[in-house]
């Protein structure tokens, strides 16, 4: 569906992306993951023909983005970052405008509008002005306009940014339902989002593709085992020694708070009951025990240093 070869884009003399090659098959949900400034939006803007790459070539459905821009755009439903909408129009008028511009008219426009309004759950709001809608509803309107004309490719730029947790779940479910026949490419900097939604993840850092894999493999590879945080009242040195002695524990670090220890262990879940038992049997008080997942920052530090190491070798 999307085929990009060695895309490079410079803003002035600063490269935003460099030698990015992508190939995305039909019917997949793919995530572009990266911190802010990694080049996600630049890539999406090139794919949607908003701008052209300084070097490289993109085809969507076999059509060249440079020479067949209008044909490419007909096949794409795009939700830009921050969901820009015409706030002075009602949902209905806005969708009618989007549909008309996408080449729909008459009964086709009407039926398509009804379909996307239904699909995005906007029926009871269709006569409301967009400026009075909540952020979650605006997001739905943004997705609805992308769906008009039933494009085979949906490109969503950070679709859940700025939403509250309930709305995030809502929008994620919507995106999952939209998959199926369609190809969906979404950008995000939220790791769990990718693992919940996407079949494949492309990790970007500083304008380059760092990794490309299924999210399961990626998490497993990055996490390399379990991380547990223990809060124990007792003599620090002894606690650390005893924890290190437990089978399966590979490392014990001091956590940021006093009396807390971060324990890295193999993927075996039985290590946690063993730790609890050890603490209790030693006569110390176990205040808290929780699992800790790698934050996105840590994932990136990890990936970047690892990649850097590989580069050197």
């Amino acid at each position, binding site marked *: 569906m999307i085929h990009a070869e060695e895309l490079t*884009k*410079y*803003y002035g003399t600063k490269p*935003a992306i460099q030698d990015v090659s992508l190939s995305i098959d039909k019917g997949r949900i793919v995530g572009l993951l990266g911190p802010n400034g990694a080049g996600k939006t*630049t890539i999406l*803007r090139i794919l*949607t*023909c*908003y*701008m*052209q790459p*300084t070097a490289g070539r993109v085809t969507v459905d076999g059509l060249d983005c440079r020479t067949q821009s*209008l*044909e490419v*755009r*007909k096949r*794409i439903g*795009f939700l*830009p*970052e*921050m969901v*820009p*909408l*015409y*706030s*002075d*129009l009602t949902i209905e*008028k806005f969708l009618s*405008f*989007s549909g*008309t*511009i*996408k*080449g729909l*008219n008459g009964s086709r426009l009407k039926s398509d509008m009804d379909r996307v309004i239904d699909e995005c759950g906007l029926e009871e709001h269709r006569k409301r002005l967009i400026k009075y809608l909540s952020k979650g509803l605006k997001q739905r309107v943004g997705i609805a*306009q992308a769906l008009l004309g039933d494009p085979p490719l949906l490109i969503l730029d950070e679709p859940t940014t700025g939403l509250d947790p309930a709305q995030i779940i809502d929008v994620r479910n919507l995106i999952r339902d939209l998959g199926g026949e369609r190809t969906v490419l979404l950008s995000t900097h939220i790791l769990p989002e990718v693992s919940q939604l996407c079949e494949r993840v492309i990790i970007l850092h500083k304008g380059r593709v760092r990794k490309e894999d299924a999210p399961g493999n990626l998490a497993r590879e990055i996490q390399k085992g379990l991380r547990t945080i223990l809060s124990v009242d007792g003599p620090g040195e002894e606690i650390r020694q005893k924890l290190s002695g437990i089978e399966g524990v590979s490392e014990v670090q001091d956590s940021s708070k006093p009396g807390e220890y971060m324990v890295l262990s193999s993927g075996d879940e039985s290590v946690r009951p063993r730790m609890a038992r050890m603490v209790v049997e030693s006569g110390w008080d176990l205040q808290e025990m929780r699992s800790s997942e790698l934050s996105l920052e840590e994932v990136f530090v990890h990936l970047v240093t690892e990649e850097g190491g590989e580069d050197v070798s």
Partner: protein
Amino acid sequence: MNAVLGVLRKEMRITYTSPIFYAAAFIFLVITGYFFYSATAYFSLLSMQAGQNPFLAENLNLTNVVVKPFFGDLAVILLLMLPLLTMRLYAEEKKSGTIELLFTYPVSDSAVLAGKFMATMAVLLSMLLGTLPYMIILETMADLEWGIVLSGYLGVVLLGAAFIALGVFTSSLTENQIVAAVISFGALLLLWAVGWAKALAGPGLGSILEHVSIIGHLDPFTQGLIDTRDIVFYVVFIFFWLFLTLRFLQSRYWRG
């Protein structure tokens, strides 16, 4: 064509829900009404004096005293008002980010531009239509030369279209509407006033300045003279700025 109409409808909808339009149209009608009233009152004063002065009566002419100055006044008010109506066309879309939607929909930049230009023309026409009752009132009281009135309106429409074309261009340059309006007003004022330097410049440069002056080409219309040269001037002026707008919008491809 479908897309042009879509953009046109959207622009009209947004314009007719915006307070700027109602404020501008209201002030426009108040000021034109005031100018019309004072010109008519002056004419009636002159008519009364003409009763005692046969020489004055011979030269007293409704067209010269009321109609011709009225179109001049319209031009001045449009110079002030149209930058306020054109400033949002692209600047607002840039600021709110909707330009990204517009540029990724399957529609050419020229279709969007045509839609926006035509929508603003429609607003201009609706405002000018509001001044037509003045002429009808005049007709009930005096013998109006409708040929001159219509050619005057044609001239004002062309002049207004020229203002709009330049205003669209300045709006495409920035995401700040005030900046767009200021640049547009300043540029129009300069192009208006450039003819005044005719007397100071030499004969060669003077005649060039006179031809470049945007207001100089309106005069013949208000006298009932429809000259192809004036029409060509306005049409070229309009297309020049619309063309620059398109080129500037397309620079996003390589500027990023």
